[in-house]
């Protein structure tokens, strides 16, 4: 900003510099310093997150020759192969099933559960239940997966033992060893592991609702069920939206528990996108094909994230 009127009149050499010159000098001095603060983060992200992401797109249009060590451009051939791959579609279905079940249990179920817990009169019980439900989320998916591998084990597992105990011997089966039940058994374990995390977050969201809103609804003679739908649900909408995104995005990145419990078997029936990517990339060394699967994961997860951005932006405008 140096409008003619604001420039300082001519000064003698001994006079101090005009103010705007000082400011400009300070800004110039400050600028590289500012960069220095964010440089480490930007550098790490640039080299190890963004660059590989771009490279992945490049890889996905290549065919790798492991023995000769080179690669040739093949256009969309990897993607064409993907469309004709029944296991890819099976994996996509399994991820979608994961997403659907997790939405029901870990978002809507967890919201209802949190409301029930927060509705208890005893603070001590509220705290204890929140903590107990959360414990499976603190242990790793590896431990949880291995544990449920044994829970589902036909001979020594407690699931079949429980069924036998209540006289339902006909229902006992090799849960992880059959094509029809393997992925569902893994999904069930995942709900056990993850519901406490979202319940805890919803409990926090419910605690933030001003108590007088509940009190006012009670005075108006609104029952607990209607209060849940008229007060709790609308006032935790932001958390619900966020949990939907986190849950959906997570469902398409599942890897750990499937790997530990079934490795994608039996007969590829419990493959998910990331386990299939892993198998193609490190089992068959078909990097181009694995990169094409990765691109599908990229598009899905980014799409989900952008959808969230769009929705929150729109809502901000409404308010």
């Amino acid at each position, binding site marked *: 900003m140096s409008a003619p009127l604001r420039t300082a009149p001519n000064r003698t050499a001994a006079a101090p510099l005009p103010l705007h010159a000082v400011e400009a000098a300070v800004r110039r001095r400050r600028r590289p310093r500012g960069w220095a603060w964010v440089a480490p*983060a930007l550098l790490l*992200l640039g080299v190890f997150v963004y660059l590989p992401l771009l490279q992945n797109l490049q890889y996905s249009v290549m065919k790798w020759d492991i023995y000769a060590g080179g690669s040739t451009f093949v256009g969309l051939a990897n993607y064409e192969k993907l469309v004709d791959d029944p296991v890819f579609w099976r994996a996509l279905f399994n991820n979608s099933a994961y997403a659907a079940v997790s939405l029901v249990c870990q978002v809507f179920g967890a919201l209802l559960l949190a409301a029930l817990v927060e509705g208890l009169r005893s603070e001590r019980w509220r705290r204890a239940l929140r903590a107990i439900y*959360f414990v499976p989320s603190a*242990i*790793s998916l*590896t431990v949880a997966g291995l544990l449920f591998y*044994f829970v589902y084990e036909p001979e020594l597992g407690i699931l079949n033992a429980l069924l036998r105990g209540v006289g339902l011997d006909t229902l006992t089966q090799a849960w992880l060893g059959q094509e029809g039940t393997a992925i569902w058994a893994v999904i069930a374990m995942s709900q056990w592991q993850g519901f406490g995390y979202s319940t805890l977050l919803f409990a926090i969201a419910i605690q933030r609702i001003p108590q007088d809103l509940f009190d006012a609804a009670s005075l108006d003679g609104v029952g607990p069920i209607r209060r849940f739908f008229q007060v709790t649900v609308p006032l935790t909408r932001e958390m619900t939206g966020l949990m939907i995104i986190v849950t959906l995005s997570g469902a398409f990145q599942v890897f750990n528990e499937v*790997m530990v419990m079934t490795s994608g078997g039996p007969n590829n029936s419990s493959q998910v996108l*990331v386990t299939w990517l892993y198998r193609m990339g490190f089992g068959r060394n078909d990097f181009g094909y694995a990169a094409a699967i990765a691109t599908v994961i990229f598009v899905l997860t980014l799409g989900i*994230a952008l959808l969230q951005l769009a929705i929150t932006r729109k809502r901000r405008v409404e308010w």
Partner: protein
Amino acid sequence: MVTRTGVLGVIVRTFVASFLLALAVVVIYPLLWMVLNGFKTNSELFGNPFALPLQVTWENYAKAWNRGVSSYLMTSILVTVTSTIATVFISAWAAYGLTRLQIPFSRTVLALILGGLMLAPAVALIPLVRMFQALGLYNTFWALLILYVAFRIPFTTFLIRAYMVDLPVEIDEAAAVDGAGKARAFWSIVLPMCRPILVSSVILNILFTWNEYLFAMVFTSGGDLQTLPIGLTNLMSKHGTEYPVVFAGMTIAAVPVILLFFLTQKYFVKGLADGVGK
């Protein structure tokens, strides 16, 4: 929430309480079963699964410990401590720069750093493997350290930045008047004031690193350096018939994080709450 009086109210409340308790049992029992199985012999394990162990012996725990769990535990501790410290410091630096200094294209910089929140690590996996092979860092401790830090910066910066934005800038300016440089103001004034969010960030990062599987599996599978999650799956495949040893190993892996959670519950919940927006 249920404030109705009368018989119906009592019935409903009892039903809700029973349901919540039953759910707690469903959560706790498998974990209890895991701990108890670590004390059983193999023949006991294949007996009545609901039976208690006949004697409390630490034999299985000792076996698990000597067959690799001790070194898996050390690796996990090393990777977790170093990557958590590095992540939190680099993120706090970035948050300070973003909230307190003038950076050209600051909006773009912010978008780049927080944009990392939307990216799935699996997507970068194949190029990363080739990159680390080329750098000669494949199957080394450095691979995990670099990856954990790089992929955790977005979330951690997001947390700390949200907290720093709310701290009045006048405090730093007062420090600047006193002649303290930016770095001094950061170390001795802003960082101590951010303690609550730093503690939350540390806890969340410990939890993530301790349990991470995909990178750990791909980048350390060939070496002798393995974190607990990978080590446990090895224990399982190597000692497939001695299940009680595997249960003991699982318990050793699970106990530290469960303890951490219960000891730091207050900060933990606060961190989660801050992490998902106020």
